[in-house]
């Protein structure tokens, strides 16, 4: 239960005992706060705003209890209390207006004695009134614009007269749990400016010596929510700090942090979710998975179950870049896309930038998926783990040196092989293999107040063999990063310096026929250096500038015999090298309270580097081997081709109201790296290719505009975004070309144009027993590869739908908390079926029967619809316990609908039949047990 305080109010001092006293007095005589009749028919929000403005009253209510009501005010000059009571009666509430101008709306009859901390006031004075005076000050405008620091009130301690002769004053007090009143032991109270701090003793008592004047105090403890308060110290005095349990506040914290974000930041097209807020969403086999959750967000789609990667706003999957703590991950899937390669235990939060990609990132046209790994707990050791039908997980974290440094180790692995050995199952099943593991380590060091260092590593490995297919796929990502964060003197400006390295290796082993057994491999190495400086001290400006540089090394493919019997000859496609560097600067300028503009420039430099032999093709002729004019050899590190260009970011935000904003953004980006794959889905068999002598970089432009609002007293967050996107030089594979062992990729590919547009509608309910979101997206995406020359056309030069064009998509995600221990959660997912090229007829040619296909992607597979459900039961909430466990029962595809992954034709005895392949055609039930050391929250 949490009550919220209407903001934008000049808050008058109030005291608990005064309130209690006032409640006993009925208000007679003159009408208190008469409400004009012209307020008739206003909605709750507007009414509250107007009343607050008119009388300076404060209104306390639980946002969940206020339904969408409209005020009915029959006559002029009724009292506020009467008007409120008349109107909130229908929803079972009662209003009480105090003489001091506080309005309380409650469900239960108003009690004479209030529980401690009822108002969630940050501090209530305990000593006599004459000694000190506590008052709240008007909230800083700044706070409204930045949702990061919630410091709504200033507490005045003592008086000027008493402190006239003092230079320093002593602030004493107790830290108590706001609900239970228990003393909080070991909480730290730190003065933000001087970094001087003290800890509370076993009674929750503390004493701190500070200079007179205003201070920001940061109160932290393991089990409580961090609190920041501003105190105005005038003389010696004391305060009582009422602190909230983390558990109780947990969801609200997340929501608070986000609530104003969407409306108030200049950013748009961003989806940010913390792991805690998504942990209840049911997923297949009960594996928590950030990538799968991302698919429930507007504008994010995948080809189907079992396909890796995703498509953001109509772009191919290689236009997304995944970073985990600055380490780029080139294959983000386990088991070919059934799971993502990120163990959510080790993830703090992720952000997906869909339109306005921050200037410090470049190199991908469509999105940046930025994952922030958890840092280890700096105060205490902790461990947690879980067992799902597929994997076992374990995470250990703790301090290396108390408060200074910490470690976190996390690993996840399948154990299916062991199960297979134990169980007496089909040979076919036994023959299949799908093993994977991933591991994360994260070390954080706080060197001093100004310097922080993080050392992070990531590894994942997959080994997969499907029943009946003699192909074994193996692939792995290994990477690490070192991030140094330095604050300048004022603590507001800082820079991040990071070095990251990532390696991706892929191997395919085929041993169907002994003498043809071969092994094929390819790899990519990515080394990145980044320096990013943030200047926040110039008033109304936030400046970000820096440089980054990436060295790519691609092993384009090696085919070699798998064993001694094999007669396969070695084929090596060689390496490829490229360096990409960027210099960037951006400024977010708050022109006025209502208008903020953002502009960024990034100069991108890409050089394809030798050693390499390249072919020059005759001008105006298709790039096929017939038309090779010349071959040129470049020496090591010699520049083969330089592509330079300016990336642009523009954005503007206009606040129509405190809770409503309009935004606009324009982005231009460049991409020099491409994923090559001939298959429809992103199969494990893909490889990376850099832009080179013959292949031009892709250039993407996106315009988007949006409307953002927090409505119904901030309980709902609403957004509508529209976009139009155009990509030039999109790399498309020619019809029927095989890229597997292609020496000259330019002969098998063409560069065309991608057009995409769409509207995304999203509404999110942020708190209450029922939380979740609903979104609807209408989007289209098509590709055109045309030329005068027939050889340079795809689909005969006609525009065709991209594989992931799914015009209508609906996602509903909802969680209902029955109690703190039991919740039920569900998803509903609908989308139009993806385009497909169908066989439409047959004919004979040269005595063979030939199947004729339709134009590319002319048809669609049936629509997709799925419902999932999960129930989580937490163990007891006792505070003192050794370990806390929870059970999650989840059903994926509850209705067992056989959603089509693809439709294909097959010869069956004497006929050809059309079939629909479904990946999860039955409800998938799974039970997961999670365990961690400590109690529910720890």
């Amino acid at each position, binding site marked *: 239960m949490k009550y919220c305080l209407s903001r934008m109010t000049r808050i008058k001092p109030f005291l608990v005992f005064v309130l209690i006293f006032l409640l006993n007095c009925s208000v007679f005589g003159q009408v208190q706060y008469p409400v004009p009749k012209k307020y008739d028919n206003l909605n709750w929000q507007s009414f509250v705003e107007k009343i607050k403005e008119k009388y300076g009253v404060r209104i306390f209510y639980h946002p969940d209890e206020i339904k969408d009501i409209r005020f009915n005010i029959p006559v002029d000059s009724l009292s506020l209390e009467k008007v409120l009571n008349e109107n909130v009666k229908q929803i079972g509430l009662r209003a009480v207006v105090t003489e001091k101008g506080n309005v309380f709306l409650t469900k239960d009859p108003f009690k004479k004695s209030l529980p401690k901390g009822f108002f969630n006031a940050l501090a209530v004075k305990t000593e006599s009134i004459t000694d000190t005076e506590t008052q709240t000050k008007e909230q800083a405008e700044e706070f409204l614009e930045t949702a990061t620091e919630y410091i709504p009130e200033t507490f005045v301690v003592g008086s000027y007269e008493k402190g006239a002769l003092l230079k320093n004053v002593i602030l004493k007090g107790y830290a108590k749990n706001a609900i239970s009143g228990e003393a909080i032991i070991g909480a730290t109270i730190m003065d933000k400016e001087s970094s001087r701090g003290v800890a509370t003793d076993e009674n929750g008592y503390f004493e701190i010596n500070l200079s007179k004047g205003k201070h920001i105090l940061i109160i932290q403890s393991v089990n409580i929510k961090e609190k920041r308060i501003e105190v105005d110290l005038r003389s010696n005095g004391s305060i009582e700090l009422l602190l909230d349990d983390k558990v109780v506040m947990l969801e609200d914290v997340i929501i608070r942090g986000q609530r104003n974000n969407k409306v108030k930041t200049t950013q748009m097209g961003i989806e940010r979710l913390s792991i805690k807020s998504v942990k209840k969403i049911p997923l297949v086999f009960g594996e928590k998975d950030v990538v799968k959750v991302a698919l429930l967000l507007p504008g994010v789609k995948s080809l189907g179950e079992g396909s890796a990667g995703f498509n953001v706003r109509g772009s191919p999957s290689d236009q997304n870049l995944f970073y985990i703590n600055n380490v780029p991950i080139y294959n983000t899937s386990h088991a070919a896309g059934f799971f993502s390669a990120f163990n959510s235990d080790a993830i703090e939060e992720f952000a997906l930038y869909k339109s306005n990609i921050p200037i410090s990132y470049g190199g991908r046209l469509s999105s940046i998926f930025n994952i922030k790994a958890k840092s280890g707990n700096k105060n205490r050791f902790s461990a947690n783990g879980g067992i799902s039908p597929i994997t076992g997980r374990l995470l250990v974290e703790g301090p290396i040196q108390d408060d200074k440094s910490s470690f976190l180790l996390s690993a996840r692995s399948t154990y299916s092989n062991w199960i297979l050995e134990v169980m007496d199952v089909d040979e076919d099943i036994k023959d299949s293999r*799908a093993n994977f593991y991933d591991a994360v380590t994260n070390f954080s060091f706080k060197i001093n107040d100004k310097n922080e260092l993080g050392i992070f590593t990531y590894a994942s490995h997959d080994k997969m063999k499907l029943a009946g297919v003699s192909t074994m796929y193996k692939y792995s990502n290994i990477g690490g990063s070192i991030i140094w964060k330095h604050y300048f003197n004022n603590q507001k400006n800082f820079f991040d310096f990071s070095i990251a390295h990532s390696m991706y290796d892929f191997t395919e082993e085929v041993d169907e026929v002994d003498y043809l057994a071969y092994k094929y491999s390819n790899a990519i190495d990515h080394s990145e250096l980044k320096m990013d400086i943030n200047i926040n001290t110039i008033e109304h400006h936030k400046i970000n500038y820096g440089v980054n540089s990436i060295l790519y090394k691609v092993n384009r493919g090696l085919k070699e015999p798998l064993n001694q019997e094999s007669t396969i000859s070695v084929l090596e496609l060689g390496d490829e090298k490229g360096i990409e560097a960027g210099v960037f600067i951006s400024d977010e300028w708050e022109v006025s309270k209502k208008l903020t503009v953002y502009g960024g420039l990034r100069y991108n430099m890409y050089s394809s580097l030798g050693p390499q032999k390249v072919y020059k093709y005759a001008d105006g002729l298709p790039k096929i081997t017939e038309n090779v004019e010349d071959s040129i050899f470049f020496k090591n590190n010699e520049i083969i081709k330089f592509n330079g260009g300016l990336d642009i970011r523009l954005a503007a935000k206009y606040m129509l109201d405190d809770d409503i904003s309009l935004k606009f953004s324009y982005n231009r980006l460049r991409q020099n790296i491409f994923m090559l794959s001939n298959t429809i889905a992103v199969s494990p068999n893909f490889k990376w290719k850099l832009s080179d002598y013959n292949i031009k970089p892709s250039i993407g432009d996106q315009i988007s505009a949006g409307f953002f609002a927090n409505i119904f007293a901030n309980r709902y967050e609403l957004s509508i975004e529209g976009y139009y996107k155009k990509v030039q030089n999109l790399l498309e594979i020619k019809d*029927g070309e095989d890229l597997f062992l292609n020496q000259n990729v330019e002969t098998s590919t063409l560069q065309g144009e991608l057009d995409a547009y769409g509207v995304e509608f999203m509404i999110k309910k942020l708190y209450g027993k029922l939380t979740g979101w609903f979104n609807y997206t209408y989007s289209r995406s098509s590709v055109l590869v045309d030329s005068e020359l027939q050889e340079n056309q795809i689909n005969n030069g006609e525009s065709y739908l991209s594989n992931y064009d799914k015009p209508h998509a609906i996602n509903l995600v909802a969680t209902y908390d029955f109690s703190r221990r039991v919740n039920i959660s569900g998803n509903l997912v609908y989308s139009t079926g993806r385009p497909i090229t169908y066989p439409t*007829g047959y004919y004979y040619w040269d005595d063979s029967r030939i199947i004729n296909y339709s134009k590319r992607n002319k048809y669609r597979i049936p629509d997709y619809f799925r419902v999932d459900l999960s129930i989580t039961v937490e163990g007891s909430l006792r505070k003192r316990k050794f370990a806390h466990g929870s059970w999650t029962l989840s059903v994926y595809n509850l209705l067992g609908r056989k959603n089509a992954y693809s439709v294909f034709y097959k010869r069956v005895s004497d006929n050809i039949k059309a079939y629909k392949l479904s990946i999860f055609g039955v409800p998938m039930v799974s039970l997961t047990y999670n365990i961690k050391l400590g109690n529910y929250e720890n």
Partner: protein
Amino acid sequence: MKINKHITYVFIFSLPILLLLSCVDETWPELDPSDEDLLVVEGRITNLPGPYTVKLSRTLPMDSLSENNTMADDFVPFTNAVVSITDDQNNSETLTEIEPGIYKTAEGGIQGMVGKSYKLTIVSEDGKAYESDYEEILEPIGIDSIYTKEELVDDVILGYRFVVSSDLNPAERNFYKWELYETYEYHAPYNPQYEFNGVFTNAYTDAQGNFHPGSYSDTRPYNIPKLPNSLNLNVCWQTEKVEGSYRETTKYISTSKIDEFPLHFIYYGHTKLRFKYNLLVQQHSISEKAYNYLEELEEQNSYDENELYTKQPYQMRGNVRNINNSGEPVLGYFYTSGISEKRMYAPPDKRPKHKNEYAAFYCYSANLLSVSYLGVGATNQIDLFLELMSNRPSYWPVYFGPAVIYHPDKMPWDWDIWFAAYPKYCYDCREKGGQLEKPDFWE
């Protein structure tokens, strides 16, 4: 065991099972009518003398596809079109529709010349005009050699693999297509003595008072004509196109010469090798575009689509277009080739040792139409048989003669000469498709 199974179904234990949970259901998507009934062009002009044939047909809808259908069943001719072949000097010849959908140049008409380019134009009955690209007849590349190599297939089947090596060609990339025509001699195992054409003649006494009995029985009522001994219907030559596609390019190899490219395989016991076997290898030199077309056509129609990760299939259009509406898909290809030829005989040493494979396979006891001992009292059977056959013209002429009869229930060497009626093809080899005339080249 039962419990174990139960566990497997109730709980989902491991990832591999997950991959098996995918399921396949039958479906039939609705198709746009404009994707059906498309024009298919098949034609070529070569440096060899004509006449040249162009085949025009229409596609069939997927749901009429059945394995029982032959190519002839499924041929929907594109009729009454005006089809012509034009060279790059504007010499043109209009083809004649000799049967529905089959258009042919005249004897002594247009003749393909190396180095010249040709295009095909089609004007349909309803006035739509189609045209192919100009295609050049490339210089034929000579065949250096063709020969056989012994090969063991599937570890058990031993036979000949025919291989071809081309001449060295100065061009860096050549694209080859081989067409193989085999000619072999084969024999029908028996010579007929009597022939029945459904006409009965009773035993009779002629004007001179001579009694004419049945040829083999004094008592039988019917008489059938005895054939002259000179009638020889059992030695034939058959020429057939060898199935399979044989293509190669020097694009990916360092020498511009094809060396020992494997053609077809024939096992040693094959009846075709019983007497003499001759192979004609036609080596076509075609353009890269045509080569790619053929390659892709085959690839697209051979892979199994029942996989998660399949290549994107696509509509394969050739080089023929609707002049006024480039959006109309036209299928098939009009291509040219420069052909060189070579013949060889299969080496004689591996001819099947079996006495007569042909007889053993097709003219065995089980195939007998009727049989009778060469003796008195067994004739009723023959008479009954002839009466039966008199109503079945498709069996005519029914041949009779003494034949080796192996007793099915006895040892192979237990045989007798019986008087028997085998199916026609056991006497007349033409019934199996060959011809009695010896080919010109036959040695």
